[in-house]
């Protein structure tokens, strides 16, 4: 009791208690109630100052249905603050990532390593993405629309990619950690959830052309699909990310009334979930039209300034042009993460590059 009293006095008066590596933040954890689904957690790891850490973890989905395919209708992703993104992909063609000799963990720092090279997962369908980096609510907890679920096979290989930044544009105040919970659905024949992963890769945000706008389109092979959720992704030069429903035949930007997604905050883009499917149907033979608007800003001296940006420019324009790439400090992105149903064989999970 005396010890407790002393502790209480120390806590209430005098010098503050020393702050541990997590500064009082409780690392994200798996959901203990998820007893019959899939769970994954990374170790807790440090993200040193002036570094960007991108790690790729490989896992095999468990057998939850006596050797048969099964469904997942709830996704819960947790990320300690400082996360730039966390993606889950289904592993398909192996290029230089996910090889047997690499094992189940591939580490990357500051753009180096196979986990940073997007060509390594060019045909890997997206499962889920979160860009939450909040200490107060570090979880994305998504109950899929009623009657909709992801299909998985026992032993199916997934790649869980984490990207933590502790630099000038984004910081990691504590330590990195990511958790994944996939909840086994009791549905026997749900509509399957499909995904779209679309990117504009030939982008340039240059000092001499400081406010460029890039637009792309991605169409569904068939009609009759409903958009369930969407998220955009760019870096700190990004000012506005819009996604529109598109009729698949027009070559001009759709009207504002067809815009269903907008992000004005590059480091906390809204993962927008459309609880009401009304109005979220894509026109027959249509798809999506997305736009990324940018404002060039000078790179920080800590990140190497324009020399570091110019060094990444394959065009060697010496115009401090941010180009497509994974490094938050010195490159840009223009990526769409979109979820739709029903996924049908002729559409499937779609990539548009």
């Amino acid at each position, binding site marked *: 009791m005396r010890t407790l009293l002393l502790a209480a006095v120390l806590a209430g008066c005098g010098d503050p208690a020393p702050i541990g590596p997590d500064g009082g933040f409780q690392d994200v954890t798996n959901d203990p109630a998820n007893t019959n689904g899939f769970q994954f957690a990374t170790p807790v790891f440090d993200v040193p100052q002036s570094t960007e850490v991108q790690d790729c973890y490989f896992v095999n989905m468990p057998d939850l249905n006596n050797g048969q395919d099964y469904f997942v209708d709830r996704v819960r992703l947790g990320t300690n603050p400082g996360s730039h993104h966390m993606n889950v992909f289904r592993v398909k063609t192996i290029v230089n990532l996910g090889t047997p000799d690499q094992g189940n963990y591939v580490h990357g720092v500051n753009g180096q390593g196979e986990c940073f090279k997007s060509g390594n997962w060019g045909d890997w369908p997206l499962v889920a993405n979160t860009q939450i980096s909040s200490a107060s609510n570090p979880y994305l907890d998504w109950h899929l629309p009623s009657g909709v679920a992801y299909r998985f096979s026992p032993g199916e290989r997934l790649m869980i990619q984490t990207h933590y930044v502790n630099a000038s544009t984004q910081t990691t105040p504590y330590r990195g950690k990511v958790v994944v919970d996939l909840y086994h659905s009791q549905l026997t024949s749900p509509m399957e959830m499909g995904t779209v992963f679309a990117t504009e890769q*030939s982008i340039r945000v240059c000092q001499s052309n400081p406010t*460029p706008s*890039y637009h792309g389109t991605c169409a569904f092979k068939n009609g009759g699909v409903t958009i369930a959720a969407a998220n955009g992704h760019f870096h700190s030069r990004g000012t506005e990310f819009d996604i529109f429903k598109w009729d698949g035949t027009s070559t001009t930007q759709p009207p504002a009334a067809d815009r269903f997604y907008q992000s004005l905050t590059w480091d906390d883009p809204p993962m927008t979930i459309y609880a009401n499917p009304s109005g979220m149907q894509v026109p027959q033979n249509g798809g999506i039209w997305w736009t990324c608007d940018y404002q060039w800003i000078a790179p920080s001296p800590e990140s190497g300034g324009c020399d570091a940006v110019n060094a990444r420019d394959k*065009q060697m324009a010496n115009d401090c042009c941010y180009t497509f790439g994974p490094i938050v400090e010195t490159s840009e992105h223009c990526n769409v993460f979109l979820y739709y149903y029903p996924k049908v064989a002729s559409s499937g999970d779609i990539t548009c590059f």
Partner: protein
Amino acid sequence: MRALALLAFAASCGSSDCPTFIGDPAQAPAIDMVTLDAAFAVHTAGDGSELALIRPPQGGKIVLVGARARNVCAGPIQVTGAVTDLCTGRVVGLESRTVLYVAAADGGVADVKEPAQISSYANVAVCPNNVAARDLDGEPYRVTVTIQDKLGRVAEKVITATPVCAEPEDERECRCTCRAGYANGDTCAGFPDAGPPVDCPADGGMP
């Protein structure tokens, strides 16, 4: 003579909204469509032209289309390129980007600042393609280029042109991934014996 004087005046004296106007602001903007080939040479594109299918750094296959413009404000111009299936009316590839334009050597035309760079043209990704009903290689398509300058002046050019695999070292892979029905991740091992091409529907399917 009077018209020439007006042109010169217009080209040299801009406003705060447009520091450098190229051509005659009283005239509607107009463009010639251009394309970049696999050797990074610029060609004017018109009906019947071939468009090079090339592999860009981002992978896949693209065609590069853009414009030379008259009667526009130089500086940043939004360039949109689209490839549309003549049979179905579906757009099989579209991209839009902001490109810097300057006065060309003769002063009467606005041209891109860096004509030999692929970033100066709409990078229209067409292969692989999950909606194309016909092969992308060797089949005619409708190609549209639209520009909009900072004053909001718009010009458009539409042609019928044929994308063709243009990089010899990549030709087999290009023809395989640009065939109708190819899906990302499909093998090209059986190509070119993977099946007959899909013909244009008898009814044309045009909207």
